[in-house]
């Protein structure tokens, strides 16, 4: 009976409905999208249009690819109620391992990649074991891991940079998918450009089409089940903006060198993890685990195993990110990945995940990572000093979380 008054308030609002009520209930999701657009528009203007130049856009994607890849795993770890501080070190260590295997030991790319991913999984398992089965706080275990793997990369590299890599390895990060479609030349002529990558453009159109299709599909389903749905205007605006943005970005990419390889990796992983978290039994159990571990356990969910797996998964993704990062720098350095875990964690929280677990979405984490990426990139172009950059990023993170808490208190 303690909360009876509040309960009734809610039902009152719910039945009242209306635009304002809907907006305030979903402020976070729209807010994130709006913030990303606003920040991009801001930097586009103050950099005199440099931000959205095809070459810079391509760069932006490449620069943030490894953060996004790790944010996917971090989201799951955070949703399940834990945290992983070791990912930067693990990423650096795996990059170092790859460099040593390829450059010093002359191993093939395939063997190197497989071993690296396996090592990532093993590292995740080693940390997850203590967290899941011994109930040692993840903060402590991964803090230890952060130091251990930082030290291990130093040891492995002998304190020096190892590189360069063969061309094929570099292409993991800096290669582009060859154009499969004809008509690029004709389009280039049409737009008065030097070259035009048809594949990238087509992929952009397909992606935008999929966004519209799945949006309409979900809306139709919701209506069928009489679920309160977003007002038509909001729906059209949201889907329209996302679809147009996709077409725009891919168009820009196609006027440069087309689709970066790493973008395919990133895109595929994002889709897989979004599906995994939202549409599968496994994903649902992770949310339940993070929402209330004891209740989940008493519902027959194997909470220890899930926690363990979330760290194995994080290790694998950190390893993939490590390969991409090393390939991008074309060398492995003892400093690689230093403090990167903080960017990854920040991306996830900016994306709306809750520190206490149970809340957060893959798409949010990806958008959060992009938001940080655009900030980095834009401030970099403007020549803002690293001192100010850090301060601004810190304040953005704080603002995002304050916004969450404020929203929750109000709701």
């Amino acid at each position, binding site marked *: 009976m303690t909360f009876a008054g509040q309960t009734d308030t809610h039902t009152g609002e719910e039945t009242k409905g209306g635009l304002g009520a809907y907006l305030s209930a979903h402020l976070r999701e729209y807010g994130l999208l709006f913030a990303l657009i606003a920040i991009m528009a801001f930097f586009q203007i103050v950099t005199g249009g440099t931000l959205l130049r095809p070459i810079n856009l391509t760069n932006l994607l490449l620069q943030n690819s490894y953060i996004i890849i790790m944010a996917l795993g971090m989201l799951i770890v955070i949703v399940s109620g834990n945290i992983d501080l070791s990912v930067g070190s693990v990423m650096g260590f795996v990059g170092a391992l790859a460099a040593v295997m390829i450059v010093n030991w002359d191993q093939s790319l395939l063997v190197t990649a497989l071993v690296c991913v396996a090592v990532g999984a093993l590292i995740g398992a080693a940390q997850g074991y203590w967290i899941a089965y011994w109930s040692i706080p993840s903060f402590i275990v991964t803090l230890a891991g952060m130091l251990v793997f930082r030290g291990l990369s130093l040891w492995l590299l002998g304190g020096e940079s190892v590189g360069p890599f063969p061309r094929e390895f570099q292409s993991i990060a800096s290669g582009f998918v060859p154009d499969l479609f004809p008509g690029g030349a004709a389009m280039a002529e049409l737009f008065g450009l030097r070259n035009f990558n048809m594949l990238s453009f087509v992929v952009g159109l397909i992606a935008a089409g999929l966004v519209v299709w799945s949006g309409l599909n979900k809306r139709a389903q919701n209506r069928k089940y009489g679920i309160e749905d977003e007002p038509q205007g909001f729906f059209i605006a949201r889907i329209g903006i996302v679809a147009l943005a996709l077409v725009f970005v891919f168009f820009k990419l196609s006027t440069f060198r087309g689709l970066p390889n790493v973008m395919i990796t990133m895109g595929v992983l994002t889709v897989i993890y979004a599906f995994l978290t939202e549409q599968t039994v496994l994903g649902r159990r992770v949310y339940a685990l993070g929402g209330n571990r004891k*209740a989940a356990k008493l519902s027959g969910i194997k909470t220890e195993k899930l926690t363990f797996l979330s760290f194995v998964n994080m290790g694998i993704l950190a390893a993939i990110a490590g390969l991409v990062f090393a390939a991008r720098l074309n060398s492995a350095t003892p400093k690689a990945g230093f403090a990167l875990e903080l960017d990854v964690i920040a991306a996830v929280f900016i994306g709306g995940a809750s520190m206490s677990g149970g809340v957060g979405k893959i798409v949010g984490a990806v958008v959060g990572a992009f938001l940080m990426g655009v900030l980095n990139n834009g401030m970099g172009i403007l020549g803002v000093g690293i001192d100010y950059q850090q301060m601004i990023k810190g304040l953005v993170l704080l603002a995002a979380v304050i916004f969450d808490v404020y929203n929750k208190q109000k709701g």
Partner: protein
Amino acid sequence: MQTNLLEMRSITKTFPGVKALDDVNLTVREGEIHAICGENGAGKSTLMKVLSGVYPVGQYEGEIHYAGGLAEFHDIAESEAKGVIIIHQELALVPLLSIAENLFLGNETQKNGIINWPETYRRTEGLLQKVGLKDAPTTLVDKLGVGKQQLVEIAKALAKDVRLLILDEPTAALSEADSQALLDLMLELKAQGVTQIIISHKLNEVRRVADTVTVIRDGHTVSSFGTTDGITEDRIVRDMVGRSMENRYPPRTPKIGDMLMEVEGWTVHHPEHADRRVIHGVDLNVRAGEVVGIAGLMGAGRTEFAMSIFGRSWGQGISGRVRMRGVEVNTATVGRAIEAGLAYVTEDRKSLGLVLDEQIRRNVTLTNLPKVANGPVLNHNEETRVAEGYRSSLNIRTPSVFQKVVNLSGGNQQKVVLAKWLFAEPEVLILDEPTRGIDVGAKFEIYGLINDLAAAGKGVVMISSEMPELLGMCDRIYVMNEGAFVGELSAAEASQERIMSLIVTE
């Protein structure tokens, strides 16, 4: 002629979209114990929040006259300074601090920020004596049972020079013996001149201690009368629910069938002290269509027994056998216990039963997700359909199954927990305090559901601290004390007296 200590006049409190209190009047005389009765959601706690300044002056309409003047509290600190102190249902003690530290938390015996420990302990001892606690002032609150913690809360109120003590469901979590002790203490405080307001569902307690009763329903004052006016419990119940409740337990004709579950020689050791045996060779059986009760005092080991059977969720060094329909089953993990046909509906729905921040439908399907999935992929529509089904069959009052459970009232939350376990399709349900903290109307509905389950051939094991409830519902009652079954009574032979005598003679 006693004077009035408190007069709340025409209090109206509106939340967006709903009037929680509508023209409520409450008059409390100096030195009396005043009971406020009403269903969950009737507005009792809201009224107390208005009184204590949680809802500051200006956020409600009406006037509060307290101790001869107009009271305009802006926050709890102001009301506490005037001696109005609330003890909430959920205790507000810091478990890892000592009794003394808790008693003077925010009210420390200090000089320039430095605590005077000898003085603190001296005063603590005095206060503990007043409430009848014999524990040392340095004992961590963590080590005390709920009953003693409740006494610490009262001592804490006394430390603040309380003039009007408000107890919100003080005995909800207490055993029979602890409840009696608490009620005795209330009477003693009254003798010392402390005016008290008690909010309670338990009418026998109200009758025992209260001088005046005010009944609130749907935000209105329904009636207010002295307990010496020959008012019966039935009259109070009628005022509370707005209808007569001659039968507090819906009738049922038991159709008892085959043996469903047999537990044999169940022995459990304490999770932290491996050598301490907590459950001593318990035997229990339940048949299809049967409702079996487990009576006992708080701390008798009932919850521990149930949870240790259900996936070894409590304790260690567990031995004993569980047979379902005559076949021995393994219940070593929660998953296996569910597979064997068991369900355990926890006494602590908020921390063990529900994911509060999740939607109703997502809570309901949690015990059996594969049933709403094609292989590994969830079917959200099927999930919604299932949840809608339970919403209508269990009468869960909510605008939609997409509502978060945290927004539901206690009774409706309890129904969600039940729905969740019905969805696991168990044969035997262990219900641990299924009606704790929910109102009379919702209780009646839960009883109806239990009867429906029995009628459908399920076996029901019901753990309850409210003896009338067990007597009204069960076909057979086991009596548990100190980790062992000390008796078994059929519905015909069971009575409160016999159960109590079994417990105390052991």
